[in-house]
C-alpha cells in the first residue's frame, strides 16, 4: 500500500492538514526550522487581488491609491498579462499565509513548504524583523489604523484626511529610521500621547511656539547665531533622516489627529522596511526550504513522481534567470540569486574546493551546513549576505559582469568580468546595489527655525552625481509644504566636496 500523502490534483482540507504535518516534520525535525504557528487560509483570485492592493496586508486603512493599485492589477490579471502569486505570507504571529484556491494539491504542498515554513522561519529569526517589527501586534495595529482613519474621515471629512495621507505617502521612504530606533516613549509619554489622541490636551506644538516666542527670545538674544542654531538642532534632534517623524513631532501646523496619521504611515513604512532589505534572502530562504522539503518528500515516498515533476516545473520557472540580452530580462531575479547562493553555501560546506577554502575558510568543509545556513538567515540582510557569501563559483555560473556608466563618458565600459581580478569588485558592486541606504536618496532635515522664518531646510546628500528627478522632487516638496505649513527648501550637496549643486524652495 502506498503511503502517498495525496493522489490527484484536487485538494481538500484534510489533505492539506496531512501535507502540512508531513512538511512540518521535515522542516522542524530535519532542517531544525523555528517558526511561528501557522495559519493557512485559502482565498480566491478576487481576494488575492484585494490583498495585492493592500500591500499584502490583511487589513488596511482606506486610501485611493490602494484602489488605483487594485484597478491596475485587476486589469492586468483580467487581460491575462499578469498572473497572480500562488501565495502571500504575512509577517505576523501566528504567521498567516494566503494560498490561492485554484492551486492543485501539489502546488498547495509546495506553497506551504515555501511560505508557511521558509518565509515563516525567516520572519521569526532574521535580526531585522526581530528588531524592527512586532509580529504579534501588527494585526491589532492595523485594525487600530483602519478605525482611526475611518473615524477621522467621518469627523474631519474625506478630503482633509486624504490630503494628509497623500502627503505622508509621498514621504514614505523618508519615514523610516535607517540606523537606529527612536527612543522608546516612557510610560508617562505613552499616557500623554493617549490623551492627545483623544483630543483632551492642547497641542504640543502650540506650547512649543509659545515657549519659543516668549521664553526663547530672551535666551537667544545674548547668544551668538551659531549657538542658537546648535541649540535648536539639539532640541529637535537634528539632522534628522526620518522626515515623517520630524514632521509629526515638530510641524507647527498639524493637529493631533493629523500627527497620528503621519505616525500610522510611518509605522507601516517601518514595518515594511526589513522586507525591502531582504528580498533576495527572504525568497532564497523560502525557495531553498521548499526545494529541500519536496526532495525529502519524494525520498520518503510521500509524494508521487508526477506531483514532484509538477512542483519542480514550477520551481524551475521561479528560479529562472534570463541573461542580460534576453527580452525577458528584468534585473537579477531575487529567487534565482537567493536560491543559488544558498545551494552554494551548502555545497561549500559539503564539497569544498580549494578556491572555496581560500575564500571561505570559516565555512568550507563545515559539517553542520544547516547551522551555517541558519546563522546566515538570522544575521544578514541582502547587502551583507551577498558581500559575505557570493562565491567566485557562482559569479562564474551566472557569468556576472559589471558595466560602469559614467555620464561624462560617451560609452558604457565593461569594468569587470567573472575572472580573478573581477570577483571582489563584482561582489561588492552587487552587494551595494541591494543596499537601500545607497539606493534611496539621502535626504535629511537640516534646520528649521520656529522663532524665525520657519523655513524647513532639507539637505540632499548627492552621491556619485546622481540627483533627484526634478518633477517628482517638486511634487513632493509641495506635499511637504502642506505638512510643514511654511516654506520648505531642499539643497543638494555633493557628499565628497560639500559643494552646493542645486537649491529649490517652495517660496516663489
Amino acid at each position: 500500500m502506498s503511503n502517498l500523502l495525496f493522489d490527484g490534483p484536487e485538494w481538500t482540507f484534510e489533505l492539506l492538514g496531512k501535507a502540512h504535518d508531513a512538511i512540518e516534520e521535515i522542516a522542524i525535525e530535519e532542517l531544525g526550522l523555528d517558526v511561528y504557528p501557522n495559519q493557512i487560509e485559502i482565498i480566491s483570485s478576487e481576494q488575492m487581488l484585494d490583498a495585492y492592493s493592500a500591500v499584502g496586508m490583511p487589513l488596511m486603512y482606506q486610501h485611493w491609491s490602494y484602489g488605483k493599485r487594485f484597478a491596475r492589477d485587476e486589469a492586468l490579471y483580467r487581460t491575462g498579462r499578469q498572473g497572480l502569486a500562488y501565495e502571500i505570507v504575512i509577517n505576523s504571529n501566528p504567521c498567516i499565509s494566503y494560498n490561492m484556491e485554484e492551486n492543485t494539491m501539489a502546488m498547495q504542498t509546495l506553497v506551504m513548504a515555501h511560505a508557511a515554513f521558509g518565509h515563516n522561519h525567516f520572519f521569526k529569526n532574521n535580526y531585522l524583523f526581530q528588531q524592527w517589527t512586532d509580529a504579534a501586534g501588527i494585526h491589532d495595529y492595523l485594525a487600530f489604523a483602519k478605525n482611526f482613519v475611518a473615524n477621522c474621515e467621518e469627523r474631519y471629512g474625506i478630503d482633509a484626511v486624504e490630503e494628509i495621507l497623500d502627503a505622508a505617502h509621498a514621504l514614505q521612504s523618508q519615514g523610516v529610521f535607517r540606523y537606529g530606533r527612536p527612543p522608546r516613549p516612557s510610560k508617562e509619554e505613552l499616557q500623554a500621547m493617549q490623551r492627545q489622541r483623544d483630543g483632551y490636551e492642547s497641542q504640543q506644538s502650540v506650547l512649543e511656539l509659545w515657549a519659543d516666542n516668549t521664553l526663547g527670545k530672551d535666551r537667544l538674544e545674548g547668544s551668538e547665531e551659531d549657538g542658537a542654531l546648535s541649540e535648536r538642532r539639539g532640541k529637535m534632534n537634528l539632522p534628522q533622516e526620518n522626515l515623517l517623524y520630524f514632521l509629526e513631532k515638530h510641524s507647527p501646523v498639524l493637529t493631533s489627529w493629523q500627527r497620528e496619521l503621519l505616525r500610522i504611515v510611518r509605522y507601516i513604512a517601518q514595518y515594511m522596511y526589513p522586507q525591502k532589505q531582504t528580498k533576495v534572502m527572504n525568497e532564497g530562504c523560502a525557495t531553498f526550504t521548499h526545494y529541500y522539503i519536496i526532495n525529502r518528500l519524494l525520498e520518503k515516498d510521500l509524494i508521487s513522481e508526477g506531483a514532484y515533476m509538477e512542483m519542480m516545473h514550477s520551481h524551475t520557472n521561479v528560479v529562472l534567470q534570463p541573461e542580460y540580452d534576453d527580452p525577458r530580462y528584468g534585473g537579477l531575479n531575487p529567487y534565482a540569486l537567493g536560491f543559488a547562493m544558498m545551494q552554494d553555501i551548502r555545497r561549500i560546506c559539503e564539497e569544498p574546493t580549494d578556491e572555496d577554502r581560500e575564500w571561505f575558510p570559516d565555512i568550507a568543509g563545515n559539517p553542520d551546513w544547516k547551522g551555517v545556513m541558519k546563522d546566515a538567515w538570522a544575521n544578514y540582510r541582502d547587502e551583507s549576505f551577498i558581500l559575505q557569501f557570493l562565491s567566485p563559483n557562482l559569479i562564474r555560473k551566472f557569468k556576472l559582469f559589471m558595466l560602469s556608466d559614467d555620464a561624462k563618458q560617451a560609452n558604457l565600459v565593461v569594468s569587470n568580468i567573472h575572472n580573478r581580478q573581477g570577483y571582489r569588485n563584482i561582489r561588492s558592486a552587487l552587494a551595494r546595489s541591494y543596499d537601500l541606504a545607497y539606493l534611496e536618496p539621502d535626504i535629511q532635515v537640516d534646520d528649521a527655525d520656529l522663532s524665525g522664518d520657519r523655513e524647513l531646510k532639507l539637505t540632499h546628500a548627492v552621491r556619485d552625481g546622481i540627483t533627484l528627478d526634478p518633477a517628482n522632487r517638486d511634487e513632493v516638496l509641495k506635499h511637504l509644504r502642506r505638512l510643514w505649513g511654511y516654506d520648505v527648501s531642499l539643497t543638494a550637496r555633493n557628499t565628497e566636496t560639500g559643494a552646493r549643486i542645486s537649491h529649490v524652495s517652495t517660496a516663489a
Partner: protein
Amino acid sequence: MVDKSVRDKSVTGADQGSEEKVTIPAKGIKEPFFANSPKGGFRQHVLPGNKDFVVGDTIPRPKGGAGEGGKKGAEDGEGEDGFSFTLTKDEYLEILFEGLELPDLVKKNTVETETVGTRRAGLTTAGTPNNLNLVRTMRNSLGRRIALQRPSTAAFKALEEELKNLESIEDESEDHSARIVELREKLAILDRRRKLVGYIDPIDLRYDTTVPEKIRNSRAVVFCLMDVSGSMQEREKDLAKRFFMLLHLFLERAYEHTEIVFIRHTHQAQEVDEETFFYAKETGGTIVSTALTEMQKIIEDRYPTDEWNIYGAQASDGENFGNDSVKCKDLLFDALMPVCQYYAYVEIVGEGDDKLLNNSEEGADLWQNLREVDHAFPQFQMRRVAEPGHIYPIFRDLFAANKENAA
C-alpha cells in the same frame, strides 16, 4: 478628454463606437516620491550572462537613460501615468450629458406619436409554420424520444444489416434459420416501436409568438445650418462641427429615431451630406436667409410637424449680406420658430475677441436681429464661441436642467 474624443469623431458616427477609453490625467492620481533621476552621475550595474565581453570593452549608451528605461511620454506630450479605463458608450454619454435635459418649453401634443408594433412574447404550442421555433421543438423531440426509448435509426439499420447478411448466406442449419426468425421478430418490434413513438410528435412543436403592442414613437430631426462662405475657415468649421455633434449625440439619446439634415449656404443654400458639409470648399457671398428658406422647404416636404420634433442649430461667423438679416428674422418669426422645438444659434468669433464674447448687446446686423427673436421665443437660444473649450460649457448652458441659469 471628452473634448478630445469629440475632436476625432464624425457627427453621425459619433455614437457608433461601443466603447470609449478615458484616460485620467496623471495629475490627479500621481504618487510622487523622492526618486533618483535615471540619468547622469556615475553608476555601476552588475548583469548576468556575459557572452564575450572582456574588461575594457565599450558599449554605446542605450537611448533613453542608462538602461533604466524612463517612463514613456504619453501621446499628448504631457506626462501621464497611463491610468485608463474603458467606459461603455452608455456610461460615456451618461457622464457627458449628466444634468442636461431636453428643452421642454413647448410641449406639443404630438411630441410622441403612437404606432402599433409587435413584441416577442415567449412560446406557444400553436402557431403558423413560419414561426416554428426549431431549437425548442427539436429539444422537446429529443427529450421525448429518450424518455420513451425510441429505437435509434442506427440500431435499426444495424439490425437490418445483420439480417441481410444472414439471409445472403446459404445455410440450411436450424440455428441459422432460427436466428433469422428471431432477428425478423426483433426488427418488427423495433419498427412498430418506431412508428409508435414518432420522430416528431405534434406535442413537441413550439412556436414563437408575438403580441401586438402600442409603441410610443418619438422622432427628431436636427437641422445643421452652416455658413460656408470664404470667411468660414478650418477653425470656424471645426467649432461648428463640435457643436453639431454634441447636439446630435444628445438628441440621439432622447429620441428613438433621429435624423440629421445638413444645409450649407453661401449666397445660396443646398442640402448636402456630412462629408461635403464639413470639408468641401465653396466660395461666394453670404445670404443667411437662403438656408432658412431651404430648411423651411425641407420641413414641409419631408418632416410633417405632427410627427417630428424639429431642432435647428445654426453656426455662422455673424456676417450677412445687406439687409438680409431682417429677412432672417421674419422667416424665423413666421415660419420656423412656431414649428421648432428648439433653435440654437452659435456665432463663432475671433479668438480673443473678448469684447464680443462678454457683451451680448453688441454685434453685427445678424446678431442684433436674432436678438429680437431671442426675446420673443423662449426656445430660441444664441451664444458666442471663440475656442473649442467654449463649446461644451455653452452646450451644457443651453440644455441645463435648470433653465433659469441659462436664460
